[in-house]
Each structure stands twice: as C-alpha cells, then as structure tokens.
C-alpha cells in the first residue's frame, strides 16, 4: 500500500495547496484574458488539477517533466514561481521566458520542467531523450511526460513510447484523457475504450485511473516511478479527467452538452479530496479554508508583482536566437 495522502498532514497540505493554487491561478488567467489583459491564447486545466498534482507529488524535486499547451497545472505542481509564470503570461521581462514564450512555452528548467509545448505530442520524444540522458549519465532521475488523449494519435507518441520501451528508459507517460482533443471525442478518435490499452503495443504496463482522484493518480505514479528508478522501464498511465472550460478562447463548446459539463463539475477533484481530508480528520474545515485562502493570496500577490514588472524589451528582440 502506498501512503494515504489524505491522512498525512504534510502531503495533504501540499496536495490541497497545489490544486487550489492551480485552480485560482487559472481562474485569474481566465479573468485577465476576458478583460483583455493577457494576450494570445490560453488553455485552462480547471477540473484536471488532481492529475498534475498527483503525478508531481510522486516525483522527487530533481525528477523532470515535459508538459503541454495545457501546462499551467504541471508547472505549478512541479514547484514553479507564480510570479514568474504570471509575468510570462503578461509578457514581462521577468517572465520565465522573458515574455517570448507565453502560456504555451513556460518552462522552469531549474525545477525540472523542460517546458510546455505548443505542438501536440511534441514533448513526448523530448521526455524520452531526457530519460536517455539520465541513463547515460547514470542518475536515478525519472522523467514524467504529460500529454492529452489527442496526442496519443500523433506519430510522435508512437515512436517515442517505443524508444522508451525498447531501451527501458526511466519515463512515465501520463496521458491526461480529458475525453476531447479540441472538439474530437475519444470515442471517435479511437476504436478502443481505454487509451492505456496502447501500452501493450509497446510491451509496457498500462493502467487507467480516475484522474479526478488524486490518491489514485498518486498511487499509480508511485509504482511507475519505482519501476523507472529500478531500471525496469516506462509505464503508461491514463488518467480520466475533464476540462471544465473550453479548449481555448475560441471554443464555443458546440461539441458537448451543458449537462455533461455540469455532471463533471460534480466530480470536482478538489472537492473530493477536501472531503477525504476532512473525513480522515487530518484537517478541519477552517484549516482547509486557510489553505484555500493562502492559495488565493499567493496568486493575487503574484499577479500584483507581475503587473508591476517591466515589459519584455523589444530592443532585445534579436537576443538569444543562438546560445
């Protein structure tokens, strides 16, 4: 048996704080975007917080991840600085990418986040390469690669998972199946009920978990990470979840019903975990409320500081094309 997150104050706090921070951060992004204060586009993971959080809780600080276009949650869960994240979205010089990347390219290499990626499945081969580097360098680090259900139909997914499999690389493939790739439901994009069934095509273990149950995500990740560290190769984890918001700003949600969305909101991963924590007697209501409000405050602070930071500098536009 792995650790019960809801019973361990330290882990329960981290889990809750992280999920709330993701939720509040993205609500803020949604709002700033609607008010025209954020440029470009953004993809929110509200409703999917348990996946990013559960996986990263099972990783060591110096383990690595690759992330996606829907990457705020992964970034926060891996320990990013909220101010630098928000500064990036606000196109500030102090942002993680000096304002050059925006939401789709935030990386936090120091904390092991090799980057969000605007290319569906683009990060998967990169994760495999990072895993290969660990092997060649003789470290015990593990790489977790996040990607969506839609990404599993890209050639990049196929080639990369196979490479990790044949070389027994320390990679954990985390497929966040939120049931749509943009407007395409998994029922039409796949002829199999579970994407984790694809793991068998590469000779690696594959499991499907309830992605809104942070304990389940955590448990499977712990097993996968152990396998990876032991040199036994990669694991494929499919986490079933749901995005509450549209795919991106341009989404009119024509491909799904309001009822479906409401139904999934009732399975809120944060609410579920709060209930478990409370039931376990680890924290009471007001302690939970404190965690919640510190998340909100941390996001507010980050926004305020990020707003005050200097804008990205056009006069340095030509810098850093080459290292």
């Amino acid at each position: 048996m792995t650790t019960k997150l809801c019973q361990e104050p330290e882990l329960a706090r981290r889990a809750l704080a992280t999920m709330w921070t993701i939720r509040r951060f993205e609500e803020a992004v949604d709002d700033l975007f609607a008010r025209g204060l954020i440029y470009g586009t953004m993809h929110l993971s509200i409703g999917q917080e348990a996946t990013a959080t559960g996986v990263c809780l099972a990783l060591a600080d110096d383990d690595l991840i690759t992330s996606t276009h829907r990457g705020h949650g992964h970034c926060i869960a891996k320990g990013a600085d909220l101010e630098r994240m928000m500064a990036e979205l606000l196109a500030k010089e102090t942002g993680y990418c000096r304002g050059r990347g925006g939401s789709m390219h935030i990386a936090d290499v120091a904390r092991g986040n090799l980057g969000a990626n605007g290319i569906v499945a683009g990060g998967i081969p990169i994760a495999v390469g990072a895993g290969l580097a660990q092997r060649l360098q003789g470290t015990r680090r593990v790489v977790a690669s996040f990607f969506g259900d839609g990404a599993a139909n890209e050639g990049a997914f196929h080639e990369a998972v196979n490479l990790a499999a044949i070389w027994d690389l320390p990679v954990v493939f985390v497929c966040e199946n939120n049931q749509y790739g943009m407007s395409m439901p998994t029922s039409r994009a796949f002829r199999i009920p579970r994407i984790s069934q694809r793991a068998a095509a590469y000779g690696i273990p594959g499991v499907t978990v309830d992605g809104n149950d942070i304990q389940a995500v955590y448990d499977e990740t712990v097993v996968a990470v152990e396998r990876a560290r032991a040199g036994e190769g990669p694991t494929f984890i499919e986490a079933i979840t749901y995005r509450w918001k549209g795919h991106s700003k341009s989404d009119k949600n024509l491909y799904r019903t309001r009822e479906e969305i409401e139904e999934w909101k009732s399975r809120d991963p944060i609410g579920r975990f709060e209930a478990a924590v409370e039931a376990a007697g680890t924290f009471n209501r007001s302690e939970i409320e404190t965690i919640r409000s510190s998340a909100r405050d941390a996001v507010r602070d980050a926004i305020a500081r990020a707003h005050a930071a200097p804008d990205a500098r056009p006069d340095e536009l030509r810098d850093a094309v080459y290292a």
Partner: protein
Amino acid sequence: MASTTIERTASDTRTCSYAEAIREALAQAMESDERVFLLGEDIGVYGGAFGVTTGLLERFGAERVRDTPISELGIVGAAVGAALAGMRPVVEIQFSDFTAQAMDQIVNQAAKIHYMLGGAASVPMVLRAPGGSGTGAAAQHSQSLEAWFAHVPGLKVVLPATPADAKGLLLAAIDDPNPVIFLEHKLLYKSSGPVPTEPVRETLGAARVHRDGDDLTIVATSVMVERSLQAADELAADGIHATVVDPRTIKPLDAATILAAVRRTGRLLLVQEAPLTGGFVSEIAALVAGCDALYSLVAPIRRLCGLDVPIPYAPQLERAAVPQVPDIVKAARELVMES
C-alpha cells in the same frame, strides 16, 4: 501587363470576409464536384480552428466534411491516397507550422509522385493552412513557411491576400491536377472585400498589380499586401508613387509582371513576413539581378522581411519582428531618397 486583365466572366459581387470567401469556394467546389471533400482536425462541428468551415458539416455531412484525429502526417497521406484514387481532397492543417509533421507526405510523396511515376498518376489535392504572426500565439504557431514549399518541384504555392483572391485562387487550386499548398493568413480571416458570387476561377501564376506608380515597385505577399497598399497611400501623400504587385502564387511565379514593373520603376522593395534569410523574396531579388532588369535598377534591391528570429509572444516584440506599415513607408522612402 497581361496579369492585370485576368479573364473573368461577368459576375455579381458581394462584400464578405476572407474566411467567408474561402468557405464559399469550398462549398461551391463541393456542390459542383462530388470528388471534392474536406478533411482536417475539428473542421466539423467546431468549424475549424479559425471558423473557416463553419456550417459545412451541416450542408455536406460528416463523410465529406471529415473530422480527423490529431495526425497530420496521416491526414495528408490519406489525402494523397484519396487523390491517387480519383478524389479531390482539400486538407485543412490548423496552423501551417504543423505542416512540419506532414512534410514527408507533402514533399516526398505528393510533390513527387507524378514525376517519379513518369506521369502515370497524379495527386490533385489542396492543403490549406494559415500562417503568419500577430495573434500572440508565439513561435510554434506563427511561422510563414512558403519558401519551403516553393523550393519543392511538383508543388504549387498560393498566398491569397484578399477575399476575392482567396476565393478565386482556391477554386483554381481545387481544379488543378497537382498538389497545391494554399497558405492563408490568420490576420486576414476577418478582413473583407468584394467577392464574386459565382465560382469564378483566378489563374495560378498570374500576379495582381494593385496599384501603379513610377517611383518604385513594391512586391508583397499575403498580409503584407494590405500593409504595402497602406504604405503606398502614405507615400503618395508625400509624392512618392509606388507600383504594388502581389504575385499571389509564388509557384508558379509571374516573373514577367514583376520584371516589367522593375524595369519601369528602377527601384524594388520586397516585403515579406517570413524571416529574411532564405525567404521567398530572395528568389525575386535573384531573378531581377539575374537578367537585364538589373540594369534598370537605380538602387540596390531592398528586402524588408521578418527578422531572423522565432516569433516571440509579447505583443510589442511580435510586432517588431515583422514589417509594419511605418517600416514599409520608411524603407520605401529611403530607397527613393538614396538614389
């Protein structure tokens, strides 16, 4: 200039957007030719990432307006195979940057099959994809990749700059028995202009001279056409008169029209959004410098292009990375003043 008097049947026009003009071309092609069908990511109920195919699913059904999984190489390959087997597929790739995923099928298959097979088969397909920056989508969603395709024998490459051209050139591209790369521009989708109501084809390989002037020739493509025309207005107020030519298709290229304009004006300003180095306008410079039009030049050929940087996210950087109207005005003025 033969190119300006493109033959066309008399036709009513209506004012509509570039996106609507493309949609109308698709619909008219599908109505008149059963072989035409569409495939791409989210082109059905979502209407495409930029709404271009909105409503077509309802009109033509899910078989002919075919939503696909996220599999660009597979999609383009399926189009190649369908074309070989007698269909006329029109593929939408959500952002032209993702043609990178499909380059094998575009370049090694579609472009080469007709020649490689000694003419025994052909690949009549169209690949539509929006390029360009200006929406804050950053480096992986903002490229202008036309030069890649123009360098590949066997492909035709179209860059429509106006709603009317978008419609007429797309209809011609669908009719064409070759693979055609049809590069739209995100910023143009909402631009509007008069568009023939009837399915009037434009000619692939004929430039459009948007404006005549004796002081310099500006050759521009895609979103840079409108910017160049605005710049030309400003310049005219200063007494500098520009001819503005849009090649519209860079492969085949209407060199004759460009060279005639250069011979007449003696100065050439080339404007493109793509990064300077290795961009398609370098080809135009090489054409001019490679023939006697060279002797008409009273000043070096000026290229005003995107900087050699990946497109950055921050709006002020993004804007500075590619030519804007004031940059065109300035470059034109310098070109005329210096010589």
